[in-house]
């Protein structure tokens, strides 16, 4: 269960599992544009968040720990804000002091491509650009599930 994503999640949201991760290019908090496909060959964790979602606040420090531990092993963590207000989202991201890039999906086009219906949502993309894990929300134990899956994908 931990490695395949929760079945409840899959029932609620159209699943992207085992499909090509929709490519996107978004502006980052530092002003740089990042494109998902440029990380082909690396394992990418994409986390959709919003400042009004309480679970995002809990999840971001956990993702930061994962990023700090596995960045050298080839993991890339991208935080995608789906907030309408870029400025306030930026302030929130600053306050969270995460080490990974924060991107803004103000047009919500990427959120639509990934069928984001509930916040936060986390997607793991393997080295070939295929979605291998999807999780909606954040509860106790999810961090361990992410770690298991990240380790598995990094070994491939």
């Amino acid at each position, binding site marked *: 269960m931990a490695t395949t994503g929760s079945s409840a999640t899959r029932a609620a949201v159209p699943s992207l599992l085992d499909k090509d991760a929709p490519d996107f290019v978004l502006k980052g908090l530092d*002003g*740089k*544009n990042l494109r998902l496909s440029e990380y082909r060959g690396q394992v990418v964790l994409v986390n959709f968040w919003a400042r009004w979602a309480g679970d995002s606040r809990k999840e971001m420090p956990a993702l930061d720990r994962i990023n700090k531990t596995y960045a050298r092993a080839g993991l890339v963590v991208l935080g995608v804000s789906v907030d309408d207000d870029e400025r306030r989202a930026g302030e929130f991201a600053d306050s969270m002091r995460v080490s990974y890039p924060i991107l803004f999906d103000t047009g919500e086009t990427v959120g639509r491509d990934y069928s984001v219906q509930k916040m936060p949502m986390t997607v793991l993309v393997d080295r070939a650009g295929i979605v291998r894990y999807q999780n909606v929300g954040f509860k106790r134990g999810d961090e361990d599930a992410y770690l298991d899956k990240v380790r598995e994908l990094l070994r491939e």
Partner: protein
Amino acid sequence: MNSKNRLVSLKWPAALLACAWATVCLAAPAVTTPVSPPTEAAPAAPAAPAAPADAAAGDPPPATSDVKTLDQEVQSAKKDVIDLNKDLFVLEEELLFPANTQVAVFLSMDVGTFFALDSVTIKIDNKEVANYLYTAREADALLKGGVHRIYLGNQKVGKHELVAFFTGKGPVDRDYRRGATLVFDKGVGAKYLELKITDKVPKHQPEFSVKDWE
């Protein structure tokens, strides 16, 4: 919606070809490999002591040549698939964007000392048709001489106005947004337009222009 459907319908022959190719590749070893063992197994049966020597002496040459032939076949099949894919791609573009309505807009950059490109928005007849964010890698590729096709679409024959907005960092790291306009006449053939970003050295400013490739 329609164009998507057309895309899908054009892609299925490619998928079929790929399947056919995969079948050929998978089938090929099954056909070729059993050929050599029976010929060697036949003499081995009556004369048991001679069999190992025969097998040792006779086995490697046919096996290597078989592998070579198979490898060549696979390579040639791969080449055929790539060629077919290219043809299908060209055909797809010709169908989706016929020459009499086709308009393509390219972006090129020269030097780029006074401008760090961030994004380009294109409007044709006041309607936004393209908006592209450039990553650092893409901007680097443009500076190295790359050309990016930023828009490919259909426009009616006649006069059209193209407005391109360039955003990025200008001299002394200032936020920079400039526009360039061109009124072009779409004839019966395909129309190619080039957005050029160049450095204006005397003024220490970037220059943005649109070139109409006749």
